[in-house]
């Protein structure tokens, strides 16, 4: 290949390389660097990381160990988010994808379920706040109708309930994603497989277990990875409902990073949180990245 030809991709790629270097790659390296600096930009090693872990807002496992209500700290809250949200979101997405496949008007229902993925997360948070409201919220209205009126409260106002309320709320908001990906996955399974299974006398459960689930593995990998990344980076909803409160009971890593950086002006600790968040993100995304590169 001659020189003229090898210059063409560089010409086409120049704006990309410039923008990415300036606004993504340099900032990432710089954030790692800042995470090792103290207040006067002196090198302090891992002090910022130790400082972050000493904050109750980030790491407070004693409440969890003693069985008390949150706050457990942002890191643990994100962990709880993953443990509860991921299986529920996978289950509802797959269940809806299968259920709505043969239902009249299924496409309309799918669009409605998917709306949560389209609206701003800030508005999603406001919708949740409305649903959970003491007087105006439909959840409490429902509880009154079924005779559980004693339980009614503003579910997002108390440390005992806010974290769970928000996690279930994000199930409501994000199930559309797993549903859509699983729907596309289901369409990709050749009909002959199901017919062959039927002829061989396989039960519904066997067909599901031996054909549907294995054939949906690529879809499952996408859904799990993407959902994990969102659960780690969750910010808008928590911000608009209680800004991490009450008493830090809904604090999460992304929000704590923001507050450290732009409220307390402590760039060192904020960068330490951001770096940990990114390391976790890379860890969870590694398998998908590996598959993407292999392609």
């Amino acid at each position: 290949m001659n020189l003229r030809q090898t210059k063409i991709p560089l010409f086409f790629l120049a704006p990309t390389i410039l923008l990415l270097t300036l606004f993504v790659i340099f900032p990432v390296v710089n954030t790692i660097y800042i995470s090792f600096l103290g207040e006067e930009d002196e090198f302090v090693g891992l002090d910022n990381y130790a400082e972050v872990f000493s904050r109750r807002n980030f790491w407070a496992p004693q409440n969890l160990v003693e069985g008390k209500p949150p706050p457990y700290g942002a890191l643990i809250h994100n962990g709880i988010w993953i443990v509860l949200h991921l299986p529920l979101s996978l289950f509802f997405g797959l269940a809806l994808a299968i259920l709505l496949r043969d239902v009249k008007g299924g496409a309309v229902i799918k669009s409605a379920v998917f709306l949560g993925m389209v609206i701003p997360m800030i508005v999603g948070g406001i919708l949740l706040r409305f649903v959970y409201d003491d007087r105006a919220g439909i959840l409490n209205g429902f509880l009154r109708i079924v005779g559980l009126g004693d339980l009614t409260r503003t579910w997002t106002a108390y440390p005992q309930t806010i974290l769970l309320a928000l996690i279930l709320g994000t199930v409501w908001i994000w199930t559309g994603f797993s549903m859509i990906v699983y729907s596309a996955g289901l369409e990709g399974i050749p009909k002959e497989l199901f017919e062959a299974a039927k002829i061989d006398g396989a039960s519904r459960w066997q067909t599901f277990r031996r054909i549907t689930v294995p054939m949906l593995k690529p879809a499952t990998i996408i859904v799990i990875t993407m959902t994990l990344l969102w659960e780690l980076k969750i910010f808008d909803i928590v911000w608009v409902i209680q800004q991490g409160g009450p008493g830090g009971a809904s604090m999460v890593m992304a929000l704590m990073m923001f507050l450290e950086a732009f409220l307390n002006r402590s760039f060192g600790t904020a960068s330490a949180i951001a770096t940990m968040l990114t390391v976790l993100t890379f860890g969870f995304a590694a398998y998908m990245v590996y598959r993407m590169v292999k392609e």
Partner: protein
Amino acid sequence: MKPKLPELKLPKLKLSETVARLRKVKKTTILIHLLAWGVSLIWILPFLGVFMASIRPLPEILDGWWNFDVFNPTLRGFVGAWNHPTAPLNRALFNSLIVTVPSTFIPIFVAALGAYSFARFKFPTRDLLFFVLVLLQTIPQQMVIIPIFKIMISLGLWNNYIGLILVHTAFALPWQIFFLRNFFSTLPVEIEEAARIDGASYLKIFYKIVLPLTLPALASLTALQFVWVWNDFFFAIVLISSPEMKLATQAVAAMPGRLAIDWTVVSAASIMVMIVPIIIYVVLQRYYVRGLVAGAVKG
């Protein structure tokens, strides 16, 4: 001449036959339909609620928007949100549009050029660059925001839409290039080679041959990127601070107070802010879903 009317042959069904037909519909099918529509209510009711709340006065909402004993529809919420004293949507929606349109089309243009070189040329460091690109897709916004904040202040682009547009552009490039490179790889090379032999320049080939074939992929990118930028809150609150420059997501986030919430106004504001991405989704639904399912890492 009298036109001959075709004779209508209506199937004469007796009631008993109709019932028998209905019976044939399996019980499980009916159950599945009931279950599906029941479950979908969970997803529809909050949207219905916010709509009802937006057109009813506050006292009626506090008694439950599902109660219709008294029903006095009002536009007070929409007017109030539009002319809100601290977060007027008339300005914020317009601001969001000013930021979102260039933040949608500039990165697509830049990414198309970049993706084309990845798909069609061999050059040193190509594989390494591509690996970096895939890796960059997963970077959280929090990981770049402090240096970006400092850079924008030193460039005089903080609290300036140009700064925000640049950041949105850069952040979109990794996943858009990845998406488009995969798309370009599926296009046949032969047409381009023929054009090359006829003496067309690479830039001309790109505009005249490749881009028109890429329209469906570009529609996916447009839909996803527009919605992503419109919905973004994090970059906006860090990079835009003047009240009159705030974007729609910032305005609607500022509306509910800590204690008493005027649900009529907040609901109307929510509707006005979310209707824009919903319209994009409805109009470009096919492309939106296709882009998302193609594994484009986003968020």
